C-alpha cells in the first residue's frame, strides 16, 4: 500500500471495509452494503483513503480504475497485513486474526440484523443433527457475537429496535462504562442505527423484458406482482398463495412471480423447506405456472432492476414474530427504489413506514382475505395507486445511503468511542474468544 501524504504532511486516515460475503454481479445485501459504504465514505471523507477488501476471486462491480476507492482481494494469509495497514476497520464479521490488531486499531462492527434470533429460526432446518448439537451450535454463535461486540469501538445497526437490543447485549457483557455514559448518555459514540439506503442510480428506462412475454402464461396486459428475494423460514407464503387463489377465482389477469429464490453463498437457505412447501402449495392450489411463477436463479443486482420495472406491485408476507419485529428487510428498499407500491405484513419498522407514509398497504399477519383485498384495491383504484407512487417518490429522498451512513461518517472523521477502554476490553476479548473456541470444540464433539 503506497503511503500518500496529505498536503500538510500528515498521513491520511486509512479506512478498510472488509466484506467477506461474495461480491460482484451476484451479490446479496452484505456486498451491496459494503459497496455503498465505500462510495459514501470516499465521497464524504475525501481526506481519507478508503479501501474495500473483497474475497479472492470476487471482482468489483464497475471499472476498478475509476472507482473513488481502492479495491483489494484478500485471502486468509494476506488478511493480517491488510488489517494492520489501516486505521479504521469496518466489517460485518471480524475474523479471528483481527484480535491481534485490536489494541492498535479502531473497529467498527456493521451489524444490521439480530443474528442470534435469525439463527434460532434458521437453525431449525439448517443445522442437521440432534437438539443438543443445535444448542451447542447456537452457543458458539452467541459467543462469537459476544466476542465481536467486545471488539467493536463503534456499532451500526439497521434500526432503533436493533439498537435497543444491542444496548441490552452490551450491558449484559459489561461493556457500558459509567464514566463514558456521563459524557455520552445517548451512547451516540458507541452505537447508532444505519438503515439500508436506496440505490442512488435513477430509475432507468425499461430494458430487455424479463417477465412479460418471457414466461409462457404472462401476457402483456397482465397485472404483475413481484416477490423479490428468497423464501426462507420466516416468510409466510401460504397466506399470499391463498390470497392469489381467492383472486384467481374471479379474474385471471393477476400474476405473481417469485424472483431470486436461491441465496448466493448460502444456497440451501434459500431453497430450503419453506421454498419447497411454497411450490407444493402452489401446485395444490392449481396456481403453479398459471398464476404463480418461480424464477429459480439468484438474479444479479443489476438485472433485478428490469424485473422490478415490469411489475405493478410488490408483495411480501411474513409472520409477526420477533424476527419481524427487529428486521429491516433490505428487499423493501429495492421496492421503494423501483417506486412500486408495496403490500406487506404489519410488525416491522418498514411496515410502519408503509402505513404512516402511504407507500402501500400493511396487512395483518395470516389474513389472506386482507391480502387479496389489498392487492385488488391497489390494482383497481388508480387514484390510490398514483398517490402511493407519489408518496414513495417523495419518501425516497429521505432514504439515501449518504443519509444512512451520516453517523458512520461522523465517527470516521473523529473516531472517539464511548466503549470501555481498550485495555479492559483486551482482557475481555481473550476470554470471549476462548469461550467461543471451547464452544466450537464442544459443537464438533456433540453431533
Amino acid at each position, binding site marked *: 500500500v503506497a503511503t500518500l501524504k496529505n498536503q500538510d504532511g500528515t498521513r491520511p486516515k486509512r479506512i478498510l471495509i472488509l466484506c467477506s460475503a461474495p461480491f460482484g454481479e451476484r451479490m446479496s445485501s452484505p456486498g451491496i452494503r459494503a459497496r455503498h459504504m465505500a462510495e459514501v465514505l470516499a465521497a464524504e471523507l475525501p481526506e481519507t483513503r478508503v479501501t474495500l477488501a473483497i474475497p479472492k476471486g470476487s471482482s468489483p462491480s464497475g471499472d476498478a480504475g475509476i472507482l473513488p476507492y481502492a479495491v483489494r482481494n484478500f485471502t486468509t494469509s494476506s488478511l493480517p497485513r491488510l488489517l494492520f495497514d489501516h486505521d479504521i476497520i469496518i466489517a460485518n464479521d471480524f475474523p479471528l486474526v483481527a484480535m491481534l490488531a485490536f489494541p492498535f486499531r479502531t473497529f467498527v462492527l456493521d451489524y444490521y440484523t439480530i443474528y442470534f434470533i435469525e439463527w434460532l429460526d434458521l437453525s431449525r432446518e439448517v443445522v442437521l443433527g440432534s437438539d443438543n448439537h443445535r*444448542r451447542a451450535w447456537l452457543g458458539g454463535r452467541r459467543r462469537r457475537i459476544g466476542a465481536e461486540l467486545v471488539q467493536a469501538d463503534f456499532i451500526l445497526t439497521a434500526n432503533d429496535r436493533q439498537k435497543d437490543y444491542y444496548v441490552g447485549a452490551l450491558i449484559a457483557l459489561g461493556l457500558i462504562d459509567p464514566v463514558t455514559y456521563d459524557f455520552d448518555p445517548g451512547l451516540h459514540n458507541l452505537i447508532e442505527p444505519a438503515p439500508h439506503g436506496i440505490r442512488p442510480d435513477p430509475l432507468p428506462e425499461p430494458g430487455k423484458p424479463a417477465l412479460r412475454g418471457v414466461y409462457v402464461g404472462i401476457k402483456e396486459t397482465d397485472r404483475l406482482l413481484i416477490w423479490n428475494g428468497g423464501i426462507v423460514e420466516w416468510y409466510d407464503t401460504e397466506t399470499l398463495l391463498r390470497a392469489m387463489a381467492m383472486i384467481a377465482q374471479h379474474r385471471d389477469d393477476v400474476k405473481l412471480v417469485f424472483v431470486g429464490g436461491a441465496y448466493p453463498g448460502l444456497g440451501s437457505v434459500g431453497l430450503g423447506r419453506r421454498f419447497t412447501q411454497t411450490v407444493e402449495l402452489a401446485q395444490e392450489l392449481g396456481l403453479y405456472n398459471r398464476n404463480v411463477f418461480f424464477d429459480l436463479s439468484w438474479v444479479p443486482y443489476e438485472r433485478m432492476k428490469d424485473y422490478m420495472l415490469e411489475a405493478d406491485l410488490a408483495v411480501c408476507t411474513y409472520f409477526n414474530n420477533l424476527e419481524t419485529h427487529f428486521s429491516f428487510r433490505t428487499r423493501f428498499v429495492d421496492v421503494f427504489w423501483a417506486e412500486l407500491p408495496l403490500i406487506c405484513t404489519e410488525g416491522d419498522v418498514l411496515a410502519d413506514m408503509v402505513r404512516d407514509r402511504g407507500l402501500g398497504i400493511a396487512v395483518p399477519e395470516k389474513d389472506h382475505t386482507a391480502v387479496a383485498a389489498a392487492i385488488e384495491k391497489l390494482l383497481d383504484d388508480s387514484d390510490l395507486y398514483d398517490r402511493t407512487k407519489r408518496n414513495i417518490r417523495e419518501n425516497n429522498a429521505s432514504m439515501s445511503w449518504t443519509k444512512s451512513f451520516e453517523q458512520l461518517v461522523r465517527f470516521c472523521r473523529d473516531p472517539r468511542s464511548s466503549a470501555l477502554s481498550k485495555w479492559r476490553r483486551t482482557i475481555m476479548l481473550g476470554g470471549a474468544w476462548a469461550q467461543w473456541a471451547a464452544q466450537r470444540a464442544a459443537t464438533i464433539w456433540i453431533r
Partner: protein
Amino acid sequence: MTNILVISEGAVGSRMAAPGIRAFNIARVLRENVPDCSVTLALPPSYPSDLDLATVPFDVTIPASGDLSRTARRHDVVVAASLPLSLIAAASSVCIVLDMYSPLVTEWANLSRWFGKRHRRAWLEAKRKHLMLELTAADLVLCANVRQRDYVAGMTATLGMLTPDEFDRDPSLGSRVAVAPMGIRPREPTIEQRAARRGLHPSIGDDDILLLWNGTIVEWYDVGTLLHAIRAVCDQRPDVKLVFLGTVYPQAPGNDVGSSMGSGAVREAVDLARELGLLDTNVFFNEGWADDATTERYLAAADIGVSTYFDSLETHFSFRVRYLDLFWASVPIVCTRGDEVSELVEERDLGAAVPARDIDALAAAIMRLLSPEERDRCRRNFAEFREAYRWERTLRPLIDFCRDGGMNRAEKRARLFPLAYRGLDWAISEAHEKLRFAYRKKLLRSGHSGLR
C-alpha cells in the same frame, strides 16, 4: 389452586409511590382475574402501613427479614421487583416473575454520579451482575414498554437464557419477556375542575392556568429549561402558575440511596426559580410527597401536565409513571421528545412534545396550549386512549402466565449451572464494592476530598 405471592418494595397504603402502587394493583388484578388462586401481598417490614385489611381482596403478610425464602417456597408463583439471594434460592421450586418496570441500569448510572469514581464503577458492576443473576433466575420478565422488551431480549439472549426450545415454543418471546406497563387509577376521576381549585392553594386563582409537575425532581429531569420557559411565558401571561407536586420520594428510614435521591436537584430547582423571580409568585414547590387525595385534587385542577428531561438512554427506555396520572385525569401533556410517551403525545394529539433543552420551543408549546380550545381537543383524545392502560389490560401477560402456571422443571435444572456461576460472579463484584466503599469512607474520614 395457584398460590401467588406478590412482594412490594415500597409502602402500600395512602401514601404510595410507584413500587407500592404497582404491587398493590398486581395483587388486586391477579386475585380478580386468575381463576382458583390465592394471592398474598408481602409488605416490607420497614414501612408502617395504614392499609385497611378488610377492604382488600387478598391476604397481606409482613415476612420477617430472614423468612422471605421460606414464605416464597410456600407459593407457586412469586412476583417481585428485585430478587435478593433469599428469593433466588427459592427459584428451583417456584416460578419467579421479575417485575422490571424501569430500565434500572441506566437509572443507576445516573443516580451514582455523586459516588467516587472507582467506588461508582464497582457499585455499578455489582448492581449489573446482580441484575444478570436475576434475569437468569426469572421465568418471566415484565417490562414497561416495547423498547425495554427489546433491551431485555438483548440481555437475555446474550446471557444464553434464550434457548432454542423456548424459541420454538413461542417465537414471539412473550412467555419469557413481556410488556406490562403500569396502569391508571382504577376509579374514575370524580372531582370537577372548578371544585378542585377551591381552597387548593392560596396563590392559585380560579382563572389561572395551572401547570402541574406531578412527581419528584431527580437527576434526569431538566427543570432548568422548564423554569426558563416559564419565565418567558410569564412575561406575557402572568396568570400561568406551575406547581411541583411532591419533591421528596417516600422512602424507608435507613435507605440512604433513596432519601438522598434528587435532594440536590430539588435545591438547584428552588434556587433557579428564586433567581428568575418566579418562586412563590408563579412557581410553587410542595414539600414532601403528596398523599393520594391531594394528588387527585391537583390532577383534577390542572390545565397542563409538564415533564422535561434530557436526551439520554434513561429517557429513551423510560416509561414515566407520572404520565399515567395525566392520562387518567385527561390532562394535556407538554413534554420532551425522546421517550415512547412523547411519541404517543404527538401521534394522538394529547398535547405537545418538544426537543430537549429547547427553551423557545417549550415556551411556544405552553403558549399554544394556553388556548382553551386546544386543551379541550387534547382532553377529548384521551378518552379512548386511556382504556388501554387499565390495569386489567396492562397486566394481561402476567394474568396469562399465572393461569397457565405450569413450570418447566427440565429448563429450571438447565439453569442451575448458570445461576451458580453468575451468583459467584456477583459475589466477587459485591465484595469488591464493599471494599471500595470502606476505603472511600476511610479516605473521607481522614479529610480527603473523596473524589477518587
